C-alpha cells in the first residue's frame, strides 16, 4: 500500500525541477573530478595509447615498420640480456624478499625490543635507491682495505688460510728446488744433528717480512735438526748458499720436515733471524722444505661489480632495501592472527615448527601474496638501483627492461620506436596484475 505513494503521478513541474537538480549534481561531481581526469588523461591515458602506436614506427616516427621493433626486442643481444636478467630478478627477488620478511616478522614477535630491529631493517625504505646505490658502491669496493664486504671475507679467509710471509721467492742455489705452490725442498738428505741452509733470492726489499734481522746459521743440536731460512742476497755480491753479514733472516716462514716418502712429519716457523729447529727427531733420513703456505697470497677481493657478479650484487642491494617492507606488512598480518588459534594448536601438541608451517603460514596466505605481488611489480619496473649500483663498464651485463627502455630512448641512442616497444612489453608484463586489481575491486562493489 505504501508503494502507491511514490507510484502516484507527480505534478507537472516536478520532473523538470528534479532533472535540473540532478544535472546540477552531476555538474558539481564533474567539477570535483575534472582536474584529476584531465591530469590522468593527458599524462597517463593519452601517452599510453600514443606509446602503443609509436611502437609500430621507426626511430624517425614517420615510417610504419609493423612489428620490426618487437622483433628487435627479442633479437638484439643487449635487450635479450635485459629480458634474461629481469627473469632472474622475477624468479629470485619476490620469493626471497617475502621469505626474509616472514622470517624477520616471526623472529621479532619473540623479543621485546622488536621496534629497534624493525626500525633498522625498515630504514632503507625511506632513502632513495640512488643513495642506496652509493652506499653499496662503497660496500662493494674491491680492495679489502676499502670495501667492507671484501674486508669481512678477507678476515674470514685469514682464519682459514692465513696470508704467507712471502709472496714469491726463488731458491738461491740449485740445492733447493721445487715450486712455491708445492714447497721448495732442500735436496740434501738430513739426519739428527744436521743444519739446513735454505737460501732464497728475488725478494724485493719491500717484501722482506717486518722485524727481520741479520741471519744467523744455528748450531747443530744432538737429537734434532736445525736450520735457517734467509734472504741469500748481499748488496755488492757474496756467495750463494752461505750466510753472510748484511743478509737478513726471513721470519714467519713455515718449514716442513718431510720423511723419505715425502710426507710432512713436523712443521716449524722461523724466528726473526730466520732460524728454525726440530727438536727430538727420530732416527732416520729427512728432507726440509719451505711449505707452500709461506707463499699463500693475500686475499685480493671479489670483484662484486664485475661482469660475472653484477646482477647478484645489485639484487643483494635491492633486497637490503625492500626486506623491511615485507617484514612490516607481514608483521601486521601476524598481529592480526588470533592468539587463541595458535595457542589451541600448541596445546594440541603441535611443535613450534608445525604450528608455523600448518597454522601461521596458511593464515598469512593473503598477506604473503600481497607482498609477493607488490614485489613482482616493483621488480618488473626495477631501474634506479641498477643504474646506480652498476658502473658504466658493466651496465650492459646488469641490464633490465626498464633500464634498456630508458637507455634506448634517452641514453644517447634516442630510438623512440624501439623504446616504445620496450615500454609496451613492460606494460604487457604488468597487465595480469592490473586485471587482478580490477577484478578484486569489482568483487568488492
Amino acid at each position, binding site marked *: 500500500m505504501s508503494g502507491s505513494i511514490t507510484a502516484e503521478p507527480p505534478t507537472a513541474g516536478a520532473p523538470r525541477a528534479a532533472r535540473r537538480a540532478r544535472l546540477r*549534481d*552531476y555538474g*558539481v*561531481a564533474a567539477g*570535483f*573530478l575534472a*582536474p*584529476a*581526469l584531465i*591530469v590522468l588523461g*593527458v*599524462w*597517463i591515458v593519452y*601517452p*599510453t595509447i*600514443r*606509446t602503443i602506436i609509436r611502437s609500430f614506427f621507426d626511430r624517425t616516427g614517420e615510417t610504419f615498420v609493423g612489428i620490426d621493433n618487437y622483433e628487435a626486442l627479442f633479437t638484439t643481444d643487449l635487450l635479450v640480456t635485459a629480458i634474461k636478467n629481469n627473469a632472474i630478478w622475477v624468479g629470485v627477488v619476490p620469493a626471497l624478499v617475502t621469505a626474509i620478511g616472514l622470517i*624477520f616478522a616471526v*623472529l621479532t614477535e619473540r*623479543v621485546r625490543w622488536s621496534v629497534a630491529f624493525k626500525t*633498522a631493517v625498515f*630504514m*632503507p625504505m625511506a*632513502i*632513495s*635507491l*640512488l*643513495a*642506496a*646505490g*652509493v*652506499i653499496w658502491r*662503497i*660496500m662493494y*669496493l674491491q680492495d679489502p682495505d676499502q670495501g*667492507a664486504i671484501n674486508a669481512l671475507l678477507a678476515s674470514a679467509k685469514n682464519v682459514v688460510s692465513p696470508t704467507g710471509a712471502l709472496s714469491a721467492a726463488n731458491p738461491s742455489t740449485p740445492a733447493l728446488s721445487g715450486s712455491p705452490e708445492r714447497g721448495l725442498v732442500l735436496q740434501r738428505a738430513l739426519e739428527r744433528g744436521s743444519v739446513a741452509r735454505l737460501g732464497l733470492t728475488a725478494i724485493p726489499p719491500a717484501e722482506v717480512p717486518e722485524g727481520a734481522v741479520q741471519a744467523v746459521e744455528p748450531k747443530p743440536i744432538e737429537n734434532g735438526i736445525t736450520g735457517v731460512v734467509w734472504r741469500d742476497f748481499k748488496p755488492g755480491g757474496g756467495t750463494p748458499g752461505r750466510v753472510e753479514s748484511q743478509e737478513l733472516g726471513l721470519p714467519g716462514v713455515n718449514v716442513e720436515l718431510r720423511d723419505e716418502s715425502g710426507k710432512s712429519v713436523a712443521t716449524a716457523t722461523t724466528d726473526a733471524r730466520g732460524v728454525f729447529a726440530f727438536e727430538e727427531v727420530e732416527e732416520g733420513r729427512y728432507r726440509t722444505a719451505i711449505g707452500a703456505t709461506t707463499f699463500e697470497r693475500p686475499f685480493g677481493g671479489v670483484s662484486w661489480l664485475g661482469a660475472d657478479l653484477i646482477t647478484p650484487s645489485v639484487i643483494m642491494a635491492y633486497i*637490503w632495501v625492500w626486506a623491511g617492507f615485507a617484514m*612490516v606488512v607481514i608483521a601486521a598480518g601476524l598481529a592480526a592472527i588470533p592468539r587463541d588459534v595458535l595457542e589451541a594448536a600448541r596445546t594440541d601438541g603441535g611443535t613450534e615448527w608445525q604450528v608455523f608451517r600448518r597454522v601461521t603460514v596458511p593464515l598469512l596466505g593473503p598477506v604473503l601474496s*600481497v607482498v609477493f605481488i*607488490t614485489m613482482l*611489480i616493483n621488480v*618488473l*619496473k626495477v631501474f*634506479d638501483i641498477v*643504474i646506480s649500483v652498476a658502473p658504466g663498464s658493466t651496465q650492459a651485463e646488469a641490464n633490465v627492461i*626498464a633500464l634498456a*627502455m*630508458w637507455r634506448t*630512448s*634517452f641514453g644517447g641512442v634516442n630510438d623512440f620506436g624501439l*623504446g616504445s616497444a620496450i*615500454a609496451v612489453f613492460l*606494460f604487457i608484463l*604488468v597487465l595480469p596484475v*592490473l586485471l587482478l*586489481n*580490477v577484478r578484486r*575491486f*569489482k568483487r568488492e*562493489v
Partner: protein
Amino acid sequence: MAVAESQVRAPVVIDERVAARILRIVAKAPVHLVLVVVGLLWLMPTLGLFFTSLLSPADIGSAGWWQIFSEPSLTTFSSYRRLFENDAIMSSLLTTTIIAIGGTVLPIFIGALAGFAFAWLDFPGRDWIFIVVIALLVVPLQMALIPIFSLYNNLGIFDTVLSLILFHTAFGLPFAIFLLRNFFIGIPKDILESARIDGASELRIFFRLMLPLGIPAIASLAIFQFLWTWNDLLVALTYGRDTRPVTVAIFSQLSEFGSNVELIAPASFVSLMIPLAVFFAFQRYFVQGLLAGSVK
C-alpha cells in the same frame, strides 16, 4: 597447618618461576643473537656511508671507513663544509625541495577532490571511472616517458621544475584517489547528511569536513608522495638534466666514482637525511599508508 605449608612453599614457587624465566631467556638467546647480528648488518651499509663522509679525501683513499673506530681523531667535517659551500649542490637541494613539495601537495589536493566525488557524489559511470583509476595504478611510467617528452618540448616546458611536478602529480594521482576514496567512504554518512540538510554546499563539505577528517589518510599519503618525489631518479634524469634535482646532481658524479667520494658521500648523506627525518617523524603514518596501499 595450611598457613604454615603455604609459607614454606612460597619461596620454592618463586624459585621455580625464576628458573622458568631464566630458562626462557636462555631458550630465546639464539633469537636475540640472530636479531642483533642481522640488525647490525642492516645498519652497517648506511653507517658506512656516514663514516666515509666524515673522513678526509686522503684518508678515504688510504683505508676503509672502519678505520674511524681505531682512530676517531680522523673525524672531520671538512667534506660537509665544502659541500655547503658548493652552490651547485645547494641549489640542487633547493630544487628538489620545491619539486617534492609541489609534487606532494598537488596530487593530494586533486586526488582528494576526486576521491570525495567517488565516495560521496552520485553521477553516471562512477564505478566504471573508478575502475579505470585502479587500472592506472600499475601502469609503468615508462609508458608515458616518450610522448610526454615530446609534449613538454612542444609546450616549451621541457626541463623545468613545473614539468617535473606535473609528471609526479599524474603518477601519484591514481594511488591518491584510491586511498582517499577508500578513506572518505568510511566516514559516517550521518555527518555528511546533516551537513547537507543544513544547506552546506559540496565544496564547503569538502573543505570543512572531508579534508579535516581525512588528515590521517592525507598524512600517510603525503609522506609516501614526498619520499617518492624526493627520491625519484628516473623522471628527473629524463626531464630534469639541467633543472638538476639532487639525485641528478649526485648521479652525474657517479660515473667518476672513486675519485670524488668526498663529494658523493656527504651529498648522498644529506640527500638521505631529509627523507629519513620525515620517516622517523611520521613513522606511524608511513606504516599505515604502506598497509593500506599494498595493492599498488
